């Protein structure tokens, strides 16, 4: 079952493409933490990739931290191997850690089903937004509802996100 709004962040500790092991509590000082299920091969991820990078860069100074997690089975989808993740993170100069959930336990614990799929937590690490980055994966210039940005602005200014949940739109997570 997918983590519900207002439920608590589920702790994790996973290897990152930069050689570290990243856990959620490393960002305890951040007022907003986004756990984003991600991967290399999915065209929806590719379509939103530059926007996610831009949002992370834009909001980093305000204490927003995203952590990207790939849980896909790299045997079926070699483009999602840990080595391929390392290459992508370096090539795109990812401003966020990119973690490999090899056992898929984290994805299962969150009830994640798609890539990309955002779980956005407030300072208390309660889930406050879940879903897609915005309403138009095809054209950044045609976005009518910037769900993620709106949720970030709300949380950073002590408000409830006007839209707290949207259907995640993307590729299915590739289970073993």
């Amino acid at each position, binding site marked *: 079952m997918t983590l519900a709004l207002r439920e608590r962040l589920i702790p994790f500790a996973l290897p990152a493409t930069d050689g570290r092991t990243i856990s959620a509590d490393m960002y305890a000082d951040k007022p907003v933490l986004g756990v984003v299920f991600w991967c290399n*091969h*999915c*065209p*929806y991820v*590719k*379509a939103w990739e530059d926007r996610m990078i831009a949002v992370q860069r834009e909001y980093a100074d305000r204490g927003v931290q995203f952590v990207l997690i790939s849980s896909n089975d790299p045997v079926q*989808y070699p483009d999602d191997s840990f080595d391929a993740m390392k290459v992508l993170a370096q090539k795109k100069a990812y401003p966020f850690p990119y973690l490999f959930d090899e056992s898929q336990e984290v994805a299962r614990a969150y009830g994640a089903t798609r890539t990309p799929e955002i779980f956005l937590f407030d300072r208390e690490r309660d889930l406050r937004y879940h879903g897609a980055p915005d309403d138009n*994966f*095809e*054209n950044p210039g045609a976005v009518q509802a910037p769900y993620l940005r709106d949720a970030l602005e709300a949380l950073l200014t002590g408000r409830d996100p006007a839209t707290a949940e949207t259907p995640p*739109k*993307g*590729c*299915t997570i590739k289970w073993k």
Partner: protein
Amino acid sequence: MRIDFLYWEDCPSHPEALARLRQVLADEGVTDEIHIARVDTIDDAQRHRFPGSPTIRFDGVDLQPEGAQALAALTCRMYRTESGRLSPLPTIEMIRRALRAARQTPKEVRHDTGTA
């Protein structure tokens, strides 16, 4: 003209892709049937030489031939649009251009790209 539309159910782009294909066919006055094939297994994918969902072929020629060279796979397909963006969907204009090219190409010079 033979029109093939191949899709994998797990990838959510296919309803919109099929709607776009139908719109282009209507705009262009093409009334030929769309042969819709659902690809469910890797064996299906290999048999259809299916590089990802959605895949559209006009008389056997892939809408974006360079993308059709990928290995057969159950996956969402990546398209590069006219503006250079990566997208899980071909644009209306990409579909229209491929259709018009197919209509202008004599059948004997078209390549078989694996339509089953």
